[in-house]
């Protein structure tokens, strides 16, 4: 018989007796479940994909009725840059019409909630830098796209957003971005 120190043998015996008792069986079942719980959480943590997005999206914008009613309307060029880097997020809108950039807004802030399976993010941003024209085309569009509740987006105004990356086209480095509350759709280039 293998001679083990008496203390070890006593502990082994106690453990075996405990495991054979009802309480011990219950404890082992609960222990296994706890292991499963922690295992699932760990796997989920490990399986998190890269959480850095740098998206550039551009669109043709037909934002004013007179512009659109002409025979051959020239669209405005609307650019959206999205940058999500772990906890930090930034949105950058630029509107170019005719001569150059006429309106823009830069919003920076934090990612307040994320669902990495659905690739959806809740962002709490602040308008850091704003430039509107008198007869703004971008501003009413943003009120819609950001589902903004106030009358106007001013400097340092807080902006809450829910965005979802709905479709990732890896071979072509494109993603489909949706603004959840306004239902706005963007196809963006992944940088």
């Amino acid at each position, binding site marked *: *018989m*293998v001679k083990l120190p008496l203390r070890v*043998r006593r502990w*082994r*015996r106690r453990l*075996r*007796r405990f495991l054979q008792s*009802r309480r011990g*069986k*219950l404890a082992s*079942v*609960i222990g296994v*479940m706890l292991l*499963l*719980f922690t295992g*699932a959480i760990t796997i*989920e943590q490990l399986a998190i994909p890269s959480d850095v997005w740098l998206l550039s*999206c*551009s*669109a*043709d*914008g*037909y*934002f*004013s*009725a007179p512009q*659109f009613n002409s025979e*051959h*309307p020239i*669209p405005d060029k*609307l650019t959206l840059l999205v940058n999500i880097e772990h906890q930090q997020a930034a949105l950058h809108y630029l509107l170019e019409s005719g001569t150059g950039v006429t309106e823009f807004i830069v919003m920076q802030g934090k990612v307040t909630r994320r*669902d990495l*399976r*659905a*690739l*959806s993010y809740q962002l709490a941003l602040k308008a850091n830098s704003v430039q509107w024209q008198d007869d703004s085309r971008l501003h*009413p*569009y943003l*009120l*819609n*796209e950001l*589902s903004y509740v106030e009358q106007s987006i001013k400097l340092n105004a807080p902006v809450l957003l829910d965005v*979802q990356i*709905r479709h990732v*086209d890896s071979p*072509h480095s*494109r993603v*489909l971005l*949706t603004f959840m*509350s*306004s*239902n*706005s*759709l*963007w*196809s963006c280039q992944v940088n």
Partner: protein
Amino acid sequence: MQIGCCWFDNERRLLVDQTRSTQWHLNDNEYWVLTQLVLHRGQVVPLTMLETVIVSGQVAHQLTQGELTSIIHHIIDYLCVSHLNLIEYIPDQGVILYPINQTKHPNILALPNRLLSWGQYGIIIGALLALLLFLWSHIIPPMFTKADVLRQIIAASGKVIQLSIYDGKSPQDAMLHAECLSTQLRLCHHVRWDSIDAAISADRHYVSLLLTEFTETNWHYKNVKISVSDMHSPFITQAWLHKVNICG
């Protein structure tokens, strides 16, 4: 006689483990306990009976409860792992040596409360349900917004165009604009795009269009944002499609 994987040599007072080739010289007390168990194999031997050691030629003496349990556990420990359940110690009652190696697995159809109390059973089921809910909440696929209208349109040139309309608010509007768009698209002579996604904004002032062209080498995308004065009326005409470069 055979007890599990051990041979009990009654003559020489030996318990021989054949698998490990070890043997255990039993002392008077250990021999007494094991003999009693063997004599009453299959029955619970009361502790009181085991405590009173009667060795031939000597006066009977008493074992303390501690000594007795120590001997019992020593015997149980000596048996191989696969025969651990052969001897069962029932605290305050007695000890039983089963006639054959008892399988501890009851019939799967037997009621669980035969093994567990209702309380314990409830705890396990509750914990299982909690685990299930936890896993469920982590496993269900993300809720993707599905298109409200999905259509395939064959344009005048014979090209097949995939049309998807997204409208979280009003399916009637989605249907109306899908109808308009498909009618007008069919009349187009040349459509560059293979797929058209249209999303109607929640405040009903804008339409987001996503136009995609699949070529063999690359995919071309184009985003178009259009402000619409009245979303509830059909606004998509041939002229409109030409203006936003869907047609022609």
